[in-house]
């Protein structure tokens, strides 16, 4: 896949440098983009798991499932894998339908949800053509055991705020939830959890507005595709197919 002349062990360092350089700029000059190389994805779902761990996702909430696709007939069978984070669309249908302005597009391109304002009507979930939003119904993994474990109540840090899972009613329970590109980590100069755990370096992240960034080079690839482009949502998440 010698698409770009970079050694595997340099990829992460370069992406982190790209992020730190982007953070020097004002927020409106950043444009966070994720690129997923489907040729390199082996379908291990380490990204899904690390995302669940990073964001303390409860049962039924998932930000980055990996969809498996089978091609061909036996004996000529191949599999491909489609990790599906939030597309962070430029023209997001979820934002348009939200009745309470509880979700919006930030200046750096991330679609944010205000958990305190969301009324839980799930219109955004209906409107997302990628099923990228899930509804937090208030489950714990240790439901039906003698005790709900403390680690399940520990806060996650989505959008840079602490969100402890106090009970089954308070936010983020009852809200629509979605992938944030781990913006709380990114703003501290770190890679999103899915990117840092990807065993095959199939997921890239960076500032598309920076021509020197790795992500900007990848976006110029002739293999670059967006998911369901016909929807007109202009996703930021890009696939190399």
């Amino acid at each position, binding site marked *: 896949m010698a698409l770009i002349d970079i050694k595997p062990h340099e990829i992460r360092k370069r992406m982190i440098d790209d992020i730190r350089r982007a953070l020097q700029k004002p927020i409106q000059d950043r444009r966070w983009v994720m690129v997923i190389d489907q040729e390199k994805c082996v379908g291990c779902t380490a990204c*899904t798991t690390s995302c669940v761990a990073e964001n303390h996702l409860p*049962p*039924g*909430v*998932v930000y980055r*499932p*990996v*969809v*498996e*696709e089978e091609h061909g007939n036996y004996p000529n069978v191949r599999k491909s894998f*489609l990790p*599906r984070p939030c597309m962070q669309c430029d023209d997001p*249908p979820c934002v*348009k*339908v*939200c*009745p*309470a*302005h*509880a979700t919006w597009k930030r200046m750096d391109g991330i679609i944010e949800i205000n958990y305190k*304002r*969301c*009324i*839980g*009507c*799930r*219109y955004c*979930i*209906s*409107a*997302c*053509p*990628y*099923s990228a*939003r*899930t*509804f*937090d*119904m*208030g*489950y714990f993994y240790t439901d039906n055991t003698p005790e709900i474990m403390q680690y399940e109540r520990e806060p996650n840090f989505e959008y840079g705020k602490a969100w402890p899972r106090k009970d*089954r*009613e308070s*936010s983020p*329970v*009852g*809200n*629509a939830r979605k992938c944030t590109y781990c913006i709380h980590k990114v703003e501290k100069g770190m890679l999103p959890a899915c990117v840092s755990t990807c065993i095959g370096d199939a997921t890239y992240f960076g500032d598309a507005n920076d021509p020197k960034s790795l992500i900007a080079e990848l976006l110029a690839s002739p293999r670059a595709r967006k*998911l369901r482009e016909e*929807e007109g949502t202009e996703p930021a998440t890009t696939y190399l197919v």
Partner: protein
Amino acid sequence: MKRFIKSIVWLLAVIGFGVGIYGMYLRFTTGHRLADYGSYIPWGLWVAFYIYFIGLSAGSFLLSTLVYVARIERLEKIGKLALFTAFGCLVAALLSIWMDLGHMFRVGNVLLHMNLNSMMSWMGILYSSYFAIILVELWFALRVDLIETAQTGNSGSAAFAKFLSFGSTDTSKEAKARDHARLRVLGTIGVPLAIAFHGGVGALFGVVQARPHWNSGLMPIAFLIGALASGGALLTAVVYIWGPDKNKQQLNEIMKFLGKIVLALILFDFLLEIAEFLVGLYSLAPAERLPLEAILHGPYWYVFWIVHFLIGVVVPVIILFARAVPKGQPDKYVGGSIAFACLLVAVTFIAVRFNIVIPAQINPEIPGLEYAFGGPGLKFTYLPSIMEWLVAAWVTCFGVLLFLVGEKILPIVKDDNREVA
């Protein structure tokens, strides 16, 4: 007979209300965890009940404008009944959608942080206005009757009527004429409002590009016609049982008139449905086809074929053609049979609403998504849980009881217009 039907309705409403309390208890103690909807099918039974009731309300209200705006004289005595039916259904609809929210007590954010790009925000604006209009209109329609009841009725209802008349005492001819003029203005504002909010509910679904089964310009129109058909049918049944029946001849005329309107509306609604189905089934795209195929021969085929098509269209249409259309002297069963046919339409219309809301969501937006990650709510099948049914029953019975109690204590239909007081 009517007394017997009224007792049955009371009995059913009280039982449903009582049993439904358990569902409400579960809803408030376990939140959404006992519901079968989730993330991939985010909208379930309560959304279907919401659009069902809001349709009944809009339909009933629009028919009331035949009295207050179009001044169709033979319907004059049922104007208040139509308004009050619309009010009961509106309350049930709002309760139903309120139960569906993840954060019920933040519902005010729809008005506080309004997003004019969102059809749901518009619902907030339009429902508030509609609620206000319907209350004010009811008050003006009832004002003189309230004052009269306050003077003549028995002590309890007289005191209540006196309170509700808010100190108004003027029952002169001029005052009545003024009321009529005001009702006409309110009704005239109400017509575009009712069209906007119910067409708007249709648009709420119609604008969702991600669900091709909803995403159609026909949606708002189909919602409106469905509202008129179901709301008109409900009103017709209500008029027969609770309406003015002292003058048998007049009641039969009203019933035949309403029966004909309902018949035309059911047929028109069915025509729209056929158009939607034929065009959709022609499509090769799974997102268009799958929902329709699920409706016609999926696991819940009977919801469409038996509940909607047979009981909700074929049987009522036959009855209405036989009873409401023929001219000449009606026999004594004509009112009852038209009411029965209309009751069938009104009750089974929930099947239509259900088939709008649910099947559109069963097609995975990304094929294979349901196998990618497991957990509660991450599936593309849906069957309402007992808790959902109980809550829906409670909401329904709340609306029915509101109507029954209101009809008892308010001068909606005056006793001297009734055969059995």
